[in-house]
């Protein structure tokens, strides 16, 4: 079936020990095979966020019909973060922000993130954040935290990357999505158990679940497969694969 597929979780960067290599030709080839039309990509792997966003912009420029830029900033350098946000969105034309609190070792609702989130709120920016749940380990990105954030920053639309990853995290992500229509759940995972996609769609509604792959760490074909083979309706599959993302991003495919 011809249906738009937008990959809401993709990266630019290399981590060979985990098999991650961002060769653009291999990237496009896999996207083509998997049926993915467009991929917003982010580079989150340098300490210097200017380098991150320049790397992203350069990658997007290789094939702007297929890629869109996603900004990255870190609260380690708060003064630079705001200037970089302005550059990323006003100069580089990026479409949303990715943050990764586990790198910073501060929870997403820590005061260190306030300037960044306030800026995003003022500009009604979409913010995607890595989420996970690990019992007995760090809870920097526990989906629970986004309930309060969504209440506080009413203009931000949140994307919970990985939807909490494991079952307990997924349940928390669903609860967060049920607390606010500004919270979306993204699907990529190497740990999601049987029934994950069904759980997310039933819990958050088919209109607020977004397909993602974590390319080029994970393969889009398997991650599209998680949606395609889920026990949900065809219409729900189409929405998750791309119709929801197109509406969220305000684009047509």
């Amino acid at each position, binding site marked *: 079936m011809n249906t738009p597929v937008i990959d809401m979780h993709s990266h630019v960067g290399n981590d060979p*020990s985990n098999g991650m290599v961002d060769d653009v030709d291999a990237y496009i080839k896999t996207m083509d095979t998997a049926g993915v039309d467009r991929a917003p990509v982010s580079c989150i792997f340098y300490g210097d966020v200017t380098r991150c966003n320049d790397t992203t912009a350069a990658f997007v420029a290789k094939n702007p019909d297929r890629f869109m830029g996603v900004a990255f900033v870190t609260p380690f350098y708060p003064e630079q973060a705001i200037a970089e946000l302005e550059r990323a969105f006003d100069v580089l034309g990026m479409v949303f922000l990715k943050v990764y609190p586990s790198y910073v070792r501060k929870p997403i609702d820590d005061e260190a993130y306030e300037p960044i989130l306030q800026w995003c709120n003022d500009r009604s920016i979409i913010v995607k954040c890595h989420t996970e749940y690990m019992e007995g380990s760090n809870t920097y990105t526990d989906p629970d935290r986004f309930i309060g954030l969504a209440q506080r920053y009413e203009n931000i639309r949140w994307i919970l990357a990985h939807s909490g990853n494991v079952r307990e995290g997924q349940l928390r992500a669903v609860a967060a999505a049920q607390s606010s229509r500004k919270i979306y759940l993204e699907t990529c995972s190497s740990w999601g158990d049987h029934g994950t996609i069904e759980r997310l769609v039933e819990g958050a509604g088919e209109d607020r679940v977004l397909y993602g792959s974590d390319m080029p760490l994970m393969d889009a074909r398997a991650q599209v497969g998680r949606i395609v083979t889920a*026990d949900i309706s065809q219409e729900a599959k189409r929405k998750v694969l791309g119709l929801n993302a197109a509406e969220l991003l305000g684009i047509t495919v």
Partner: protein
Amino acid sequence: MGQVDLEFKPTVPVFDANVALGRRHDRIVSADADTPEATLAELARAGIQRALVYSPHAIDFDSNDGNNLLFETVQRHDALVPQFLCNPSVDDLDKFAADVAERDIRAVRLAPKAHDYPFREWVAGEWLEWMGSVNMPFWVSAPDIDPSELRETMVAHPEVNFVLAEVHYGHLSWAVPLLKSLPNGYIEISRFVLFNGIARLLEAIGSERILFGSAFPESPMAPQLYSLHLNGLDDDTLAAICSGNLERLLGIQ
């Protein structure tokens, strides 16, 4: 706009090399996944004809108890092929060997870390000699074994085939070199969802030592099956990975 098969079914016979069967004591298994009937229903939905199944109780508590529980459970279900756990550090080899022969068990599984023994010649050697004598392959989960122990022990037992299960991208740095160095090593691909992972394996070890497995219900059944069908494999290679290699390993058709 990309092409996506929203009603995917495999085009070749499929024999899932890795399914856990039974309710766990330590976490919820979906109610639609913890019985033989539920597992068979999911196999049917995924277009899979058979599955090699083991008992998680045999890993978490008593291998003998778990094996008996499993055998009773799958008795009326030809599509569920039982795999027995053994613990070389405490189990009785003669009794186990007799049991396996009487019940026509074609594969065993080891869990060294879960069972707290080093996978060394002085613990497992006698068992490996027995396995070699009866052409009995064993499965071991990548997170559940020390890779150096595996390599050093199995290099001395080239007559014993083993399957490395649940290999994650985090294991890439040792799993592929190990498989390249040991021609008696196979890989079950349930968690091998890294970018271009299938192509990497084909290049590294060829198609004959790759097995489709799902790790159901810890993972959904069909996404990797979908990915295999999008990897440009010829029909013979696809059929081999989806079932033929496992059938050959188990000595059944």
